[in-house]
């Protein structure tokens, strides 16, 4: 079964009270969501009125090496297997999409790992996107005080700022700048009371939506839109940092994959996201999309999406200096066949 027949999974995450359920309730009311199954960790105060809502009772298995991102969510394996069985036996209408709502304190990485690594699930499902809601009123405080909130943002493909009607415009603007710096690779929008066009989030579905999203978000122009304010200190220590690189020359894919696999082995927990569109000297680029130790199988595309055929690579890092990545790539340049230039860090 190839990826065009796998069912896309959207993970909706966000800190406590950031409006995940409100967003979902509005989205699920639209006719396009009729053939979507919803898996929730808890039934919150805002009830979901949808015919295919199922609860996940968290059962986690920490694998041998103990890294958090490589935790198998056995409850998710069970729930998706059951859904698949009911779908294939015709008990429910054919499923087109799955939405998983996490708890406000959940790290979404184990959910991604569970689907990507499970020998059965990987043939029937794929992670389409991680959607993170951020409360415009309390979001800054959550990001300041709760590392899991920063991680939910760092892992997002889509960020939705909620409750913007309750916050001052300058507060929203400051939050937006911070989110853009913490995760320049994510698309961002705002929603009041979950009022968001489902098409923005879920479609219209291209044949390779993940590829389309990656292509749209690795552009270096994103960094130029939100430079760090003049005089603002660079964060250090345990802060989340991002790094955008461009390679003008084609990269040696074999050498680059050796370097990246070595990096993820040594520092996978610190590489919260890696996204890229790489020129490897073929007719089309290689699309990279990774979350910590977990790398989605790289897509080798037949053609380029636009005229820019340089390689663009974005890292979102936790407790790892972007300079170290740049220095390493420079030292590896003779193996890689290309030299990086830094767009922003």
């Amino acid at each position, binding site marked *: 079964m*190839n990826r065009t027949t796998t069912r896309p999974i959207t993970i909706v995450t966000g800190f406590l009270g950031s409006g995940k359920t409100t967003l979902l309730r509005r989205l699920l009311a639209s006719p396009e969501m009729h053939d979507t199954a919803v898996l929730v960790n808890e039934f919150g105060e805002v009830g979901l009125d949808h015919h295919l809502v199922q609860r996940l009772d968290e059962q986690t298995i920490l*694998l*041998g*090496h103990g*890294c958090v*991102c*490589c935790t*198998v969510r056995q409850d998710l394996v069970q729930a998706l297997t059951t859904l698949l069985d009911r779908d294939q036996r015709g008990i429910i209408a054919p499923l087109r999409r799955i939405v998983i709502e996490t708890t406000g304190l959940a790290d979404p990485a184990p959910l991604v*790992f569970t689907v*990507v*690594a499970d*020998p059965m699930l*990987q043939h029937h499902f794929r992670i389409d996107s991680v959607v993170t809601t951020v409360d415009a009123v309390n979001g800054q405080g959550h990001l300041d005080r709760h590392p899991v909130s920063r991680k939910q943002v760092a892992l997002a493909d889509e960020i939705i700022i909620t409750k913007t009607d309750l916050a001052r415009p300058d507060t929203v603007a400051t939050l937006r700048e911070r989110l853009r710096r913490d995760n320049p690779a994510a698309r961002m929008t705002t929603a009041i009371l979950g009022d968001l066009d489902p098409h923005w989030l879920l479609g219209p579905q291209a044949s390779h939506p993940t590829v389309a999203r990656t292509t749209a978000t690795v552009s270096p122009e994103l960094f130029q839109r939100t430079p760090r304010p003049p005089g603002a200190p660079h964060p250090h220590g345990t802060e989340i940092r991002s790094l955008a690189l461009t390679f*003008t*020359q084609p990269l*040696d894919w*074999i*050498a680059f*994959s*050796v*370097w990246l*696999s*070595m*990096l*993820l*082995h*040594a*520092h*996978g927990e610190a590489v919260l996201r890696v996204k890229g569109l790489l020129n490897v000297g*073929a007719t*089309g680029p290689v699309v990279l999309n990774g979350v910590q*130790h*977990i*790398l*989605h*199988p*790289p*897509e*080798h*595309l*037949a053609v380029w999406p636009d005229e820019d055929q340089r390689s663009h690579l974005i890292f979102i890092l936790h407790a790892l200096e972007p300079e*170290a*990545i740049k*220095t*390493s790539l420079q*030292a*590896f*340049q*003779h*193996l*890689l*066949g*290309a*030299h990086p230039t830094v767009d922003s860090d």
Partner: protein
Amino acid sequence: MCVLCWQFLTESHWTDRRFEDNDPTTATAGSDHERTRRRDRHHRTQVLNQILTHYGLRLDDWHSRSYLLSDRKGKTAIVQDLGVLWPMAQQLTGRLLDPLDPWLLARLSHSHAGREPVV
């Protein structure tokens, strides 16, 4: 695709995948696809040896199916792919193989000294 928990993965490692893998007509042994795959393995072995040599390790392709990873004392391990290689290399050497390690970067720069920088 977890580089630490490789034993749970049943499909080919991501570093072994190519665009041609999506086309079933190219999977025949002896075809261009197979030749490309062998050429890639050969090149991968060469690249890896330029790194592993700094740790006293050597990698050899074994019938285009696995690799043999050896240290200078003759200890040898069979590794399937890069998901297995790095943890095994760490086990053989007792140290983390880290592409950010200034010691390794200095060794690489020294071994490439005199070559023109890549533009």
